[in-house]
């Protein structure tokens, strides 16, 4: 029994990341917590790109490039989200998303 991790182990890891992120998105009341969950989910997909690249298309780097895209998008998204949170905090003095129901109708 070798300790070298295989494809399935990496998959379990990325699935765990995704599930933890999803749990965070669905359960955190703080907007920042939700954002962290989203980041976790994004990163789990990024990880998937790397894994597939490594195991299924070794000579190429497409997956790694996609991962860099994802990181860039995630960074931009985090900046935008944080800016929105700051604006919300300024007007409401809270970023508890369970109170944010104004856009219901």
């Amino acid at each position, binding site marked *: 029994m070798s300790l070298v991790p295989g494809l399935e182990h990496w998959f379990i890891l990325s699935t765990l990341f995704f599930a933890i992120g999803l749990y965070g998105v669905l359960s955190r009341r703080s907007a920042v917590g939700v954002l962290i969950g989203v980041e976790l989910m994004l990163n789990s997909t990024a990880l998937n790109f790397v894994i597939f690249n490594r195991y299924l298309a070794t000579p190429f780097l497409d997956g790694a490039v996609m991962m860099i895209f994802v990181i860039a998008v995630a960074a931009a998204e985090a900046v935008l989200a944080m800016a929105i949170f700051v604006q919300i905090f300024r007007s409401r003095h809270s970023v508890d*998303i*369970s109170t944010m*129901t*104004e856009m*219901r109708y």
Partner: protein
Amino acid sequence: MDAGFAYAWLVPALPLLSFAIVGLFIAPRSRQAAGLVATASVLAATVIAVIIAAQYYVAFPSGGDAIIAWSFAWLEYAPGLTATIGVLLDPISVLLLVVVTVVSLLVHIYSLGYMADDPGSGRYFTFLNLFTFSMLGLVVAPNILQMFICWELVGVSSFLLIGYYYQKPSAVAASKKAFIVTRFADVFFLIGILLLGYQGFQVAATVGVPDGMQVFDFLFLTAPSTVGALGDASLLTIAMVLVFIGAAGKSAMFPLHIWLPDAMEGPTPVSALIHAATMVVAGIYLVARLFPAFAGSADALSVAMIVGAFTCLFAAVIACTQNDIKRVLAFSTLSQLGYMMFALGVATLASPLGYAASLFHLFTHAFFKALLFLGAGAVIHAVHSNSIWEMGGLARRMPVTHVTFLIATLAIAGLPPLAGFFSKDLILAAALVNHHPVVFAVGLLVAALTAFYMGRIYIVAFLGKARSDSAEKAHEASPVMLAPLLILAVLSLGAGFIPVTEFVGLPSDSGHDHHGPAWLPYVATAAGLAGLLIAWVIYRRPTEGEAEATGWRVVLQRQFYSNEVYLFVTKRIIFPFVSAPIAWFDRHVVDGAVNLTGNLTRWSGIVLSRLQTGQLQTYATWFVGGVVVIGLLFWWWVR
């Protein structure tokens, strides 16, 4: 097409032209001019009609061929199914042309005096022209569709003229009633036409149509091959009964008679023209037109005979109790129409005496009944009342009217040598010759009743002393009104000597007995005299009025409650139990379903919007759950 008569289209066209010109341009400006132009156009039409009659009579002295004098394709429904507009000249249409134009002309002239003070008389003459055109178009119709077209047009002119005093609720109601009742009958006529058109088309497809004829043409429909084919399809009786119902509506046969007495709400000259002399005989004319087809079905003719005889008796009995002079005359018209109808009903192709007799009576009746109405109009004009119990003693104050009215009374009572005697005698003979003793008995009884009720109104209105102030002050009508009375009086005296029966004889006539038994004229005259005598005995004393009707006389006076029955059916059954539920059903059930759909959509929207909490995480949870479910389904499906 016979070039010799091509100008015949002018007869209906002149009143039509005048209708358009007078209605659009003259009537709004000058009512006097309207009256004169309208009358002039009818005068021209009359002259042409008389020339046609003379020419036709010279060409065919003893009954003759049918000539399509002029026609053109008006409406092509499908190849081989064309409605033409044209002019058919045959003995009966020529006869009717003369009757209609002459009576119409006299009524136009009379109306110049009668309506002189009426501010709306421009409208009146417009409608009168429309009627004259429609009636002439009906008379010369070469096909059943033109007949129907003009049939409806005379109906609407009658409607317009009955409702001429349109601010009077009773006149409005009467005009509606007249139109709707006849319209109801017309539905059957229309169905009959559809049936004839359809079957005729089938016959035409197999046998072929003779040259220059159309499926709807009377000449085609009454041709032996068509009648035979209809009979083979066992549709002849039903088609003829349907057409007969239409005819019965226009000719006010029981039970469709209820509109005619009310139609007396119109101006009296209108009653004379439309509801006595011309329009109401259209039904008789239609049956006569289609007589060879009717003769193919003994049942259809029996229906005509029974309905005619019953109406004849029924109306005569009611006429004996009415107090309104025009209503008496209206019921008398009904009764006389019954005569004509049963005369047609007793005739057969082999022994068509009744056919000729019916048309003869139509001819004579037009004159003396128009005279009676115009005379009554002169009286009403003078007395300002319709009730005979407010007249009396008018013989001295209105001598000319009196004499002419008396002539007409004797004519309708059937006393020789006046016009009514000859035609009525012939009808009774026809009933005997064709072995219908019951019908003969009814005819004889009605002859006596006719003499009685006519004697009654004559005696009460003209003899004795005045029963009201206005009757006291009554004075003779103007010359323009008297001239038509005199002309009609002459015609009532002499029309019986015109050999109409020779003229309109059918070619199928096998030379049966044309005269009936020798005792018949004496019996018929005796019946008439007896009726007059009884009237004299009862009404000779100058009473103030008749005692209030009681018992069975109420029933008679209320015309056996036939109006009430109709009112009950329409007002109490059709409107509340058919029409109202449909209107309700539409608003609440059909439209309710529509609103229900709308409301369901709205409610489901309201219910579903509860799911929309605004909580981002709720949405996300639903979303994830949905993805998981879809993923599982997909997995299950792929597996």
